């Protein structure tokens, strides 16, 4: 036991406990604020948790790998949460089965749009080729996108960042965009959110409407499959 506060900090800042606690606490506050603003799109809890935690790491000079040693327990839950999507899918199976054809068409068209649009824009803006490749799988969930990026020889950590940025922007913009476009079909709205903005879009969709959440979860799962197949093809075609 040490009485020196600095050596206590050195000890704690290297332990997973501190960083796990910081992650949960910051998120709990961000989520409470989001709830207080009636889930206003700009009060997105992921966005605000990320910058607060990132700022904290920069101010304390903590490396990302030290932080991740604690935060990995939360990150790990992405896998089980994907499996858990089976439950809302099961509970709404009749509605889902009735929309199978619109889903498949929207899946193929949307997945191609997500990949091609970002690659064309990135090239127009003169971004270097490794960056363009890292952005290509940005609409699928982080684990899958990083795998695709690695197989292309791109930068998986840049891909992870672009995935999260895409998810946050999609989650912020989807509700006002769909309202302005006058779209009231929550199956279609949810499906678009999950396809364009993966799990963060899905989390947003569940906040707005249960059916939207279910369709968003399906879109996110299916797009993970389709994008893994389409990105290598797009990279070959769009040289």
């Amino acid at each position, binding site marked *: 036991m040490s009485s020196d506060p600095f050596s206590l900090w050195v000890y704690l800042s290297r332990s997973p406990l501190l960083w796990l606690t910081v992650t949960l606490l910051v998120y709990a506050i961000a989520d409470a604020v989001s709830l207080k603003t009636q889930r206003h799109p700009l009060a997105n809890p992921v966005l605000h948790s990320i910058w607060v935690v990132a700022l904290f790491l920069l101010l304390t000079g903590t490396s990302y790998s030290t932080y991740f040693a604690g935060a990995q327990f939360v990150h790990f839950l992405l896998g089980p949460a994907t499996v858990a999507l089976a439950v809302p899918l099961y509970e709404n199976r009749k509605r889902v089965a009735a929309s199978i054809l619109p889903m498949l068409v929207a899946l193929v068209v949307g997945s191609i749009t997500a990949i091609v649009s970002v690659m064309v824009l990135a090239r127009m803006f003169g971004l270097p080729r490794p960056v363009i490749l890292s952005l290509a799988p940005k609409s699928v969930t982080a684990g899958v996108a990083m795998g695709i990026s690695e197989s292309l020889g791109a930068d998986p950590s840049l891909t992870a960042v672009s995935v999260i940025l895409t998810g946050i922007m*999609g989650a912020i913009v989807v509700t006002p965009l769909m309202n302005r476009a006058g779209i009231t079909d929550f199956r279609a709205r949810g499906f678009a959110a999950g396809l364009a903005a993966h799990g963060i879009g899905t989390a947003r969709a569940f906040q707005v409407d249960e059916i939207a959440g279910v369709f968003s979860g399906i879109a996110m*799962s299916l797009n993970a499959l389709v994008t893994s197949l389409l990105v290598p093809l797009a990279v070959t075609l769009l040289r």
Partner: protein
Amino acid sequence: MIASLSLILICQLIGEVIVHGLGVAVPGPVVGLVLLLVLLLLRDRFSVFSRGPLRDEGVERASRGLLANLSLMFVPAGVGVVQKLDLLAEHGIAIMTALAISVVVTLLVTVAAFLITSRLMAGFGREDAP
């Protein structure tokens, strides 16, 4: 609770084994999702499956708990932005603009494709209009 979480993890584990065993380009958790869905459907058909976490809403409650906190799980990966500050200082505006335009275009094209197909189907009288 623990039994339900175990069932979810077992589905994911079998999913990973299948994916890596066959070398397919599908994420393991997505195969796990399909497995859990099949189990839930089998439970309705055959009473043998209606036990443990598959009884009394066990796995349903655990899954809802996980999904209610889905946003939280993206925070650790997102904080990875601290490793990319140099790159973002150099290309940040171009990257953000490309991602922002792409996500809006993708949302609009996807929702349009869904609604147009849905209306065409309704036109053929196979489904109610939305």
